């Protein structure tokens, strides 16, 4: 499982940094390194891009795992450079941005957009397979989540936009329900597709979602 991110357009980053002349950059050694959005290389590239627009980079770090308490350690280790900055530009997913914001008093600016939680199918190809909806039905859909894989999140079968196994929004995208159908058919379990799925409970776990493990 990886938190998949994409760097924001540089103009947007520049806009967020308006009024901040001294910047500390924090990357992440886990997901953002694997997706090449917040590893050492990208952090150094960001550093030179910022210097080109006359920003002073007071320091940088790549936190091994930005979304856990390692961020606190990293912030303490870099306290001097952070105190010497106006803000921290974070090149991790939003979980890391959130974490870091709880440990320092400087404004925290995200350099990345967090897209989805995905798996790496083939090297460099990340794919969303779960929308974390809180009501898993993939036992009835041959392991393929229609909430995620179907553009409309339909749970009762394909819409009329399916065409030769592809989706109406993108001819390259597989129709989730054709995939589900083919797998269920191969498993001789098409009866599951005939089952009526009632309207989903969108408040199964109301936002913001929390769990306390005792």
């Amino acid at each position, binding site marked *: 499982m990886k938190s998949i991110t994409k760097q924001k357009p540089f103009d947007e980053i520049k806009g967020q940094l308006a009024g901040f002349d001294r910047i500390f950059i924090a990357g992440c050694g886990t997901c953002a390194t694997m997706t090449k959005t917040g590893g050492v290389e990208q952090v150094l590239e960001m550093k030179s891009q910022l210097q080109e627009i006359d920003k002073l980079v007071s320091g940088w770090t790549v936190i091994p795992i930005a979304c856990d308490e390692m961020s606190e350690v990293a912030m303490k280790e870099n306290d001097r450079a952070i105190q010497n900055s106006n803000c921290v530009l974070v090149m991790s997913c939003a979980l890391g941005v959130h974490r870091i914001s709880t440990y320092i008093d400087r404004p925290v600016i995200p350099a990345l957009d967090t897209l989805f939680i995905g798996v790496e199918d083939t090297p460099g190809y990340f794919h969303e397979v779960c929308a974390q909806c809180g009501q898993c039905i993939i036992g009835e859909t041959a392991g393929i989540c229609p909430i995620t894989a179907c*553009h*409309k*999140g*339909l*749970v*009762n*079968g*394909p*819409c*009329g*936009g*399916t*065409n*030769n*196994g592809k*989706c*109406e*929004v993108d001819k390259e995208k597989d129709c989730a*329900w*054709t995939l589900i*159908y083919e797998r269920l*058919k191969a498993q001789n379990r*098409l009866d599951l*597709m*005939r089952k*009526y799925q*009632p*309207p*989903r409970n*969108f408040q199964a776990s109301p936002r913001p979602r929390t769990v306390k493990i005792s």
Partner: protein
Amino acid sequence: MASSFKEVLNSGKFVITSEVAPPKGTNLEKTLRHIELLKDKVDAINVTDHQSSVMRFPSIGGCLAIKEKGGEPILQMTCRDRNRLALQAELLFASSRGINNVLCLTGDAVPVGDHKEAKGVFDLDSLQLLKTVRLMESGQDLGGNDLDGAVEFCAGATVTPEANPIEPQLIKFEKKVEAGAEFFQTQGIYDLDNFAKFMEYARQFPVKILAGIILLSSARMAKFMTANVPGIFVPQSMIDELATVPKEEMLNKGIEIAGRMIAALKKDSICDGVHIMAIGKEEVVPDILAAAGL
């Protein structure tokens, strides 16, 4: 022809429906003209619901206009733009105003339309919407509460007889039948042999099937639809037939083809009726009917 659509469906006559698209704006002139033109020539008129995900005057507004003119409207409702509260509220409103036919649709995807950054709702799907109609007729809402005044609808749905693969589509068709669909208006069909095979299968279910007839206005349009519109397949012989006539004659050829298909479907009692979609050329629907000998 403003007798209730349900009565017409069950009368055994060959049913004719067509559709109008509301305007993008408040100028209803063209839509009203089309309603005026069609209301006495067809058994009911569908009003599209932001078709192709393009924002327009609402379907329910078009249906009210049809009622005001003494026609029989079919309210198209997609699940794309409203959650279950809004869908149910609209069903209450429609029923209270004598709009008693509803076509339950999933709805096209948001990115194909003109508000590409909008949120696609899909709180319910077409099947769940059909069930909701039937539930509300029993005097309850989806929250399990009693309604003060129930609704009453003749509820329909769609099916794509040319879908590939076809079996997932048929599974959903059967689920729609079980959910209480009384009639189906199909995606446009052109290959009557294929359609007859579909009808052999569909005849086992207690529903009325109206074949979708989309007017072909040119050979280019026929090719484009075959290549790009899910579930549409225009046979090459039909494309060639259109291509044989000069450009300015193509529309007339398309009218002739549509009329010929309708006449054949009726003559051999292949299905229960047709749903004519003229897509922007509603003024020629009477010509199509004339070409069909109706």
